[in-house]
């Protein structure tokens, strides 16, 4: 009997036909556990701060600052992009992705100088995030006041 996968070309077609589904599952699995792990590290830092008797709001800020500092430095050392390639959204969605989005473009455009290169390109992705986040939050605040004034 003829094996349908005899020739290299047929095999390639077989692979192409079979592969589209599996990367998404694998990507989702990697995103799940890496993202979960990053946030769990955040939770442990948070628990440690609370254990030391630090106020809850300040503990939350400390968690953000520590995670941002770690991921900014890892991006600078070219380690974060390896994690990112593996984990996809797992390292993008936590606050680590925000820090990475600041460092990665500014590193790349360093040759354009410290003002228009590093200083400006830092906000290629973080800029839109801040613009839309802050603007929406101001609208939320105004709506809150309007609704409360009406009731």
């Amino acid at each position, binding site marked *: 009997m003829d094996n349908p996968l005899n020739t290299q070309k047929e095999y390639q077609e077989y692979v192409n036909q079979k592969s589209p589904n599996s990367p998404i599952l694998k990507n989702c699995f990697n995103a799940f556990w890496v993202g979960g792990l990053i*946030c769990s590290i955040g939770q442990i830092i948070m628990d440690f701060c609370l254990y030391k008797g630090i106020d809850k709001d300040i503990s939350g800020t400390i968690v*953000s600052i520590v995670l941002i500092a770690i991921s900014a430095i890892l991006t600078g050392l070219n380690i974060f992009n390896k994690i990112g390639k593996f984990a996809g959204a797992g390292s993008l969605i936590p606050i680590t992705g925000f820090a990475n989005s600041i460092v990665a473009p500014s590193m790349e455009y360093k040759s354009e100088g410290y003002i228009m290169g590093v200083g400006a390109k830092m906000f290629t992705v973080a800029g839109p995030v801040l613009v839309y986040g802050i603007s929406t*939050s101001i609208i939320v605040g105004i709506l809150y006041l309007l609704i409360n004034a009406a009731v």
Partner: protein
Amino acid sequence: MEFLCNLNWIELLKCFLVSGVLCVIGQILIDKTKLTPARILVIYVTTGVILGGLGIYQYLVKFAGAGATVPLTGFGYNLANGTIQAAKEDGLIGAFTGGLKASSGGIAAAVFFGYIASLIAKPKIKKQ
């Protein structure tokens, strides 16, 4: 050491599961749509602000702790929450000052460490 013995594993598991699911949603958006990572980050923050403003997201924060605050939706929640708290106290001015006040630590740290990391970084040599 005493701190490690007192770790709440149930809380940690809830945190792991919720943040994992939030990341999987992002991964599906990356793989199934043509959205760029920048757009996904904007969508996450804006969604967090809206869910925070509607008073929904705090239930997730109560349930999952850092699992809900560390993802970018949590950053949006923080903005919305700060804005509403300040609007309660200071009215219209609060709506403008509250959001950034609540998230100032994270933003300042991102700018500062981002700048430092860019300074120490050696530009990657692109492989052909």
